[in-house]
C-alpha cells in the first residue's frame, strides 16, 4: 500500500463506510483483520507539515488518531517557531471540524441564496448528526469512566452521512464546469484576489492561470498591509522585504507601536526571540523599551514604556539620531510627543551604550498618515547604531529554497481600491475570491458590496462562510491545510532559508477539494491546460526542481525527505543590505479626520491577539479565550481610560455609542488603564455580516441561522474608520479617525461584553487575584 492509499484509509473515520448504491463515493470498508500501515488503534501518528493560519509559516506536526486529526504541535527546531505554536495555530483543528464549514460545492442560481440542492444537503448532514451519528457517539464513549473510543458505530446516522457525502461528491463536476465557464466569460477581465494561504506554489499556480487567461496577476489581500514598512525599508535598507529582526542576540530592543509578539506577522518567531533575548545568554539579559500610545502586551513585558500621542512615535526615533541626518532635540521630541524629557534622555543613553540595538516599527506606527517617514526614522536608528547586517540587529532574509516560492507581497489599500473601482465600473467580468474575504481589508466607508455586486460572475473558494463568499455565484470550498498539499515560506525573515511542505494528514472531512485540484480541472475544461493532473502531482513537480543532495550516497529525494521532516531549511542570510542613513525632514505630523470639538477621542484600533488577521474570529476557542490585557472574550468592546470614564460617569458594562463621521457602533465599556485620556481603543474583531455562528450577527449556515443570532457579534471597528490613505505607500491609515463617545444610559445586554476575569474592572475588590497582586508588588519590575 502506498502512502496515499493509507491516507485515504486513515480518512475513513472522518468520512464513512460505503454502503450499497454509492459507487462514486471514495471511502471504503476497512476490514478489521487488515490493519492499515502506520495505524495502530489508539496510538497517535504524527505527520510533519506546516501551519497555514497566518503568514508566519510555522512548522507543525499533526497528531492523527484513527483517521482523525486531533491536535497540531510545533515542529521541534523549526526556524520560525522553534517547537512552539501560537494560540491560533493550536485552535486550527477547529477549522477542520467547524460546524459551519461548507459541506461541498454550491452552484447558486440567485446570488446570496444557497441553492435548493445545497440546502437539502445541509439538511441531510444535520439529520445525520442528529441521529445516532458518530459525533454524539464519540462523546458518549468518552464520557466519565470510559477512557477510550469504542469501535466507531456505523448505524443509521452514518448511512445518512454517507448519502450526503455521495450526493456532494456528485456536484463537483458540475461545479468545475461552472467555474470553467466563468473563466471563459471572464478571460482577460478576470480578477483573482487571494489570501495569505495562497502562497508558495499555490500562488505560482494561480499566477499561471492569470497568464493563461491574459488576466492581471493575482492580488494578495491582507487586512493589515505592510506597504508602509516595505516603502520605508526600501528607502533605508535598500530593499523592501521584511527583514530578520534578530531579537535573540540583541541587547536593547526598542519597539515602536505595540504588538510584535502576540499579533504581528510571526508571533511565534518573535516570542521565541524575546524569550531568548531575556534569558538564553548566561550573562546578558536584553532590555526592551516600548514607545507607544496604547499600553498593550509588549508594554506589559517591557522594562520601560514611553507613552506618546497617536502618530508621533517617529519623533522619538528622530530625537536619538544625529542632527546631521535630521535628528531633533530631546526637548522638541518631548513637546511633539508628550513624553517626558527624562524618559527620552534615558532611552537615548541606553541607545548609545547598549550594543547591538534593534529598533522595530509596529502596526501602531504603520496605521498613521505619516507611517513612511516615521518607519524610516525608526529604521534609521538601526543604521546609525551599526545594527544592519549584524547579529542582534537587522539581517537580510535569504532567498527561499525554491525560487518561485518567495512570499508574495500584499497589495496596498490604494491598489485594492483601484481594483474595487474597476469592479464598480463594470470592468471585471469574473472575480475569484481564493481563500480571502476582501471585506476585512476595507473600511465600511467604501462601498465594496456595491462594487462587487457589479461583477457578473463570482466564485469563492473559502472553507468557511464569510461576507465575500455570501456574494458568490459559485462556492467551491477549499480543503483545510490538514487535508491538502501546499508549501510555504515565512512572510518575514527568520534567519534561515525555509521551505515548508504541507502534506494532508487526513482526507477532507466534508466533500471539499483543494484549490489547485479545482483550478487545474476548470482551467483544462476552459481550454487552458496548466500541465498537471492534480495538486499532488503539481507539488511533486515543483519540488522536483530541488537538486537531490548527491554528496551522501543513498540520500532520499528532496520530496521524500521533506515529507519526513516537514520541508527544507538551511541557515543563511541574504545578500547584505546596502543601507544608508537617510536625511530626514522635520517630523511629519499625523493627520486625523474628525473635528476635535465634536469628536474628542482618537480611535486606536487594536490588532488583537485573539482575532489576528481575521481567521481567529471564526474559531470558538479564539472567541472564548480572554485576551491577555482585558480578558475580553466573544466579540468586541471599547477601552476607555479610568479618568475619562469617571468624567463621563461611565461604569464597566455600560453601553456607549462610539461615533465617527462615517458610522457608529454600540459597544460595552471596559475601563482600561493603558490608554491616554483622549483616546479610546477597539479591538479589530473582524465580525462579519454573513460569517459563521461564532463571528457574525446573523451567522452560520442558513440551516441554523435562526438559532444563532447573538447580540455580541456584528460590531466591528471597520464601521467607524475613515478612508484615509497614507500618501507615500498607499496603505490604509486605520489609526487616523476621531470619534465621540456617548453613553446610552443602558448596560449592554447579557453576552455582548464578556470578560473572563472581572478583576481589571474592580481593583479595589479584595478578591484573590489582588491578594496575589500584593505579593507581586515586591518584584523588581523593570
Amino acid at each position, binding site marked *: 500500500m502506498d502512502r496515499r492509499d493509507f491516507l485515504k484509509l486513515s480518512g475513513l473515520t472522518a468520512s464513512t463506510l460505503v454502503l450499497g448504491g454509492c459507487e462514486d463515493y471514495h471511502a471504503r470498508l476497512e476490514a478489521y483483520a487488515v490493519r492499515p500501515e502506520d495505524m495502530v488503534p*489508539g496510538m497517535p501518528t504524527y505527520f510533519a507539515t506546516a501551519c497555514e493560519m497566518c503568514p508566519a509559516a510555522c512548522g507543525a506536526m499533526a497528531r492523527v488518531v484513527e483517521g*482523525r486529526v*486531533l*491536535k497540531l*504541535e510545533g515542529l521541534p527546531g523549526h526556524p520560525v*517557531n522553534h517547537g*512552539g*505554536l*501560537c494560540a491560533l495555530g*493550536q485552535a486550527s483543528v*477547529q477549522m*477542520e*471540524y467547524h*460546524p459551519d464549514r461548507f459541506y461541498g460545492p454550491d452552484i447558486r442560481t440567485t446570488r446570496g441564496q444557497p441553492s435548493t440542492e445545497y440546502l437539502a444537503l445541509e439538511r441531510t448532514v444535520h439529520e445525520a448528526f442528529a441521529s445516532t451519528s458518530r*459525533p454524539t457517539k*464519540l*462523546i458518549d464513549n*468518552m*464520557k*466519565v469512566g470510559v477512557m477510550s473510543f469504542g469501535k466507531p458505530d456505523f448505524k443509521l446516522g452514518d448511512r445518512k452521512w454517507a448519502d450526503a457525502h455521495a450526493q456532494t461528491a456528485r456536484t463537483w463536476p458540475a461545479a468545475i464546469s461552472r467555474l470553467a465557464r466563468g473563466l471563459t466569460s471572464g478571460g482577460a477581465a478576470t480578477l483573482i484576489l487571494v489570501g495569505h494561504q495562497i502562497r508558495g506554489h499555490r500562488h505560482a499556480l494561480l499566477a499561471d492561470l492569470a497568464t493563461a487567461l491574459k488576466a492581471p496577476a493575482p492580488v494578495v489581500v491582507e487586512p493589515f498591509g505592510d506597504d508602509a514598512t516595505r516603502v520605508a525599508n526600501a528607502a533605508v535598507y535598500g530593499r523592501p522585504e521584511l527583514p530578520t529582526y534578530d531579537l535573540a542576540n540583541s541587547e536593547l530592543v526598542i519597539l515602536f507601536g505595540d504588538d510584535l*509578539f502576540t499579533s504581528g506577522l510571526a508571533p511565534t*518567531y518573535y*516570542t*521565541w526571540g*524575546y*524569550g*531568548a533575548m*531575556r*534569558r538564553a545568554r548566561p550573562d546578558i539579559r536584553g532590555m526592551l523599551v516600548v514607545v507607544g500610545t496604547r*499600553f498593550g*502586551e509588549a508594554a506589559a513585558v517591557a522594562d520601560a*514604556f514611553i*507613552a506618546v500621542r497617536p502618530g508621533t512615535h517617529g519623533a522619538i526615533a528622530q530625537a536619538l539620531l544625529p542632527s546631521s541626518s535630521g535628528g531633533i532635540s530631546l526637548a522638541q521630541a518631548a513637546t511633539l510627543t508628550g513624553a517626558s524629557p527624562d524618559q527620552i534622555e534615558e532611552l537615548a543613553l541606553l541607545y548609545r551604550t547598549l550594543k547591538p540595538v534593534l529598533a522595530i516599527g509596529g502596526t501602531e506606527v504603520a496605521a498613521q498618515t505619516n507611517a513612511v517617514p516615521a518607519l524610516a526614522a525608526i529604521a534609521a536608528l538601526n543604521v546609525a547604531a551599526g545594527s544592519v547586517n549584524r547579529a542582534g540587529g537587522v539581517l537580510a532574509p535569504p532567498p527561499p529554497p525554491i525560487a518561485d516560492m518567495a512570499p508574495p507581497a500584499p497589495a496596498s489599500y490604494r491598489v485594492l481600491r483601484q481594483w474595487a473601482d474597476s469592479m464598480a465600473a463594470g470592468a471585471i467580468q469574473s472575480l475569484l475570491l481564493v481563500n480571502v474575504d476582501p471585506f476585512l481589508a476595507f473600511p465600511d466607508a467604501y462601498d465594496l458590496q456595491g462594487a462587487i455586486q457589479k461583477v457578473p460572475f463570482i466564485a469563492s473558494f473559502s472553507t468557511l462562510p464569510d461576507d465575500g463568499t455570501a456574494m458568490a455565484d459559485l462556492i467551491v470550498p477549499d480543503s483545510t491545510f490538514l487535508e491538502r498539499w501546499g508549501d510555504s515560506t515565512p512572510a518575514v525573515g527568520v534567519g534561515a532559508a525555509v521551505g515548508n511542505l504541507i502534506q494532508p494528514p487526513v482526507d477532507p*472531512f466534508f466533500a471539499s477539494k483543494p484549490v489547485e485540484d479545482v483550478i487545474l480541472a476548470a482551467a483544462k475544461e476552459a481550454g487552458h491546460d496548466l500541465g498537471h493532473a492534480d495538486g499532488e502531482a503539481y507539488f511533486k513537480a515543483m519540488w522536483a526542481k530541488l537538486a537531490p543532495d548527491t554528496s551522501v550516497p543513498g540520500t532520499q529525494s528532496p520530496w521524500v525527505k521533506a515529507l519526513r521532516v516537514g520541508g527544507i531549511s538551511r541557515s543563511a542570510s541574504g545578500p547584505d543590505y546596502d543601507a544608508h542613513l537617510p536625511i530626514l525632514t522635520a517630523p511629519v505630523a499625523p493627520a486625523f479626520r474628525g473635528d476635535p470639538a465634536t469628536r474628542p477621542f482618537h480611535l486606536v484600533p487594536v490588532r488583537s491577539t485573539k482575532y489576528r488577521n481575521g481567521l481567529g474570529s471564526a474559531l*470558538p*476557542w479564539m472567541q472564548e*479565550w480572554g485576551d*491577555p490585557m482585558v480578558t475580553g472574550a*466573544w466579540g468586541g468592546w471599547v477601552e476607555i*481610560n*479610568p479618568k475619562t470614564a469617571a468624567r463621563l460617569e461611565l461604569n464597566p458594562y455600560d453601553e456607549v455609542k462610539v461615533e465617527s463621521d462615517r458610522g457608529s457602533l454600540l459597544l460595552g465599556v471596559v475601563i482600561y*488603564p493603558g490608554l*491616554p485620556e483622549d483616546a479610546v481603543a477597539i479591538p479589530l474583531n473582524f465580525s462579519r455580516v454573513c460569517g459563521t*455562528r461564532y463571528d457574525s450577527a446573523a451567522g452560520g449556515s442558513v440551516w441554523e441561522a435562526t438559532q444563532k443570532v*447573538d447580540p455580541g457579534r456584528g460590531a466591528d471597528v471597520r464601521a467607524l474608520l475613515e478612508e484615509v490613505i497614507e500618501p507615500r505607500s498607499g496603505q490604509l491609515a486605520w489609526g487616523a479617525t476621531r470619534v465621540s463617545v456617548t453613553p446610552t444610559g443602558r448596560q449592554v445586554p*447579557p*453576552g455582548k*461584553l464578556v470578560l*473572563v476575569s472581572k478583576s*481589571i474592572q474592580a*481593583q479595589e475588590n479584595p478578591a*484573590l*487575584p489582588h*491578594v*496575589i*497582586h500584593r505579593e*507581586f508588588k515586591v518584584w*523588581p*519590575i*523593570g
Partner: protein
Amino acid sequence: MADWISDKGLQTATGPRAAGRRWGLVVDLDRCTGCGGCVIACHAENNLALAGPLDTDQGRSFDWIRIERYWDGEYPDLKAQFIPIMCQQCEAAPCEPVCPVFATYHTAEGLNAMVYNRCIGTRFCENNDPYNVRYFNWFEPALNWPDPLANQLNPAVTVRSRGVMEKCTFCVQRIRDHEELARIEGRVMKDGEFTTACAQSCSAKVLIFGDLDDPGSEVSQLVQSDRRFRLFESLGTEPVVYYLKGGQG
C-alpha cells in the same frame, strides 16, 4: 487513575513520596509575552469544553491554565505583569482533605489527581483552593461540542460532563504514555523526552516540566535560581510549580 486504590491512605497533608519521581513545573516569567499559546494548547489537549458567551460571562468558562495580569500605576507611568497560572499541584494541597468522596487526592508521584467519576460536585475543593484553578463543569458535553466539533476530542483524556470538578492534571496522559513507552523499551524515562501540552506550545520556553527529584533534570537546575518563588508561599501549601521572577536580577 488506576493507582488510586494503592494510593489510598497516602493522602496526607504532606503528601506521599514513593514513586521515585516528583513532577514539577518551572515558569520563567521573564520570558513570557502573554501570547496565550499555552492556554489554547491545554484546551486542545485536554478536551476543555466551550461555555459560549452567556456562560463565560457568568464565570463558567474553562482555562486550566490562564494568563493573569497585574497592573500597577496610572497611565503613562504604568506597569503590568503577566503570570500564567495553573494547578500548583501542592504537596500540602488544601483542596484534597476536604473532598468527602476522595475524588481528589495526591498520587505517589506528587500529582494532585481528580477521579472524575467519583466527584459528586460538592465544590468544597474549589472553595478551599487558594489559587482559583479548579473549574466546575456546568455543561452536558454534547451541547457544547456542536457537531462535528466533537471529532477533535482527544481519546486519551476523559470528556467531563456536568457536575464534576476539573483542573490541570500536569497532562497525566502524557506521563502515562511515556512511562509505558519506557517500560516497553526497557529503559528509564529521560528528562525532557516529553512535556506537557502548554510547555510544548510555548515558543518562548517559559514553561519547563520535569522530575524535581532527578538532580540532573532541567527543572531541578532551574529551581536553584535565586529568582525563584512560589505563589502564596506563606500559606504552606508547598506548590511544585516554581516561578522565576521577571525583571532584572
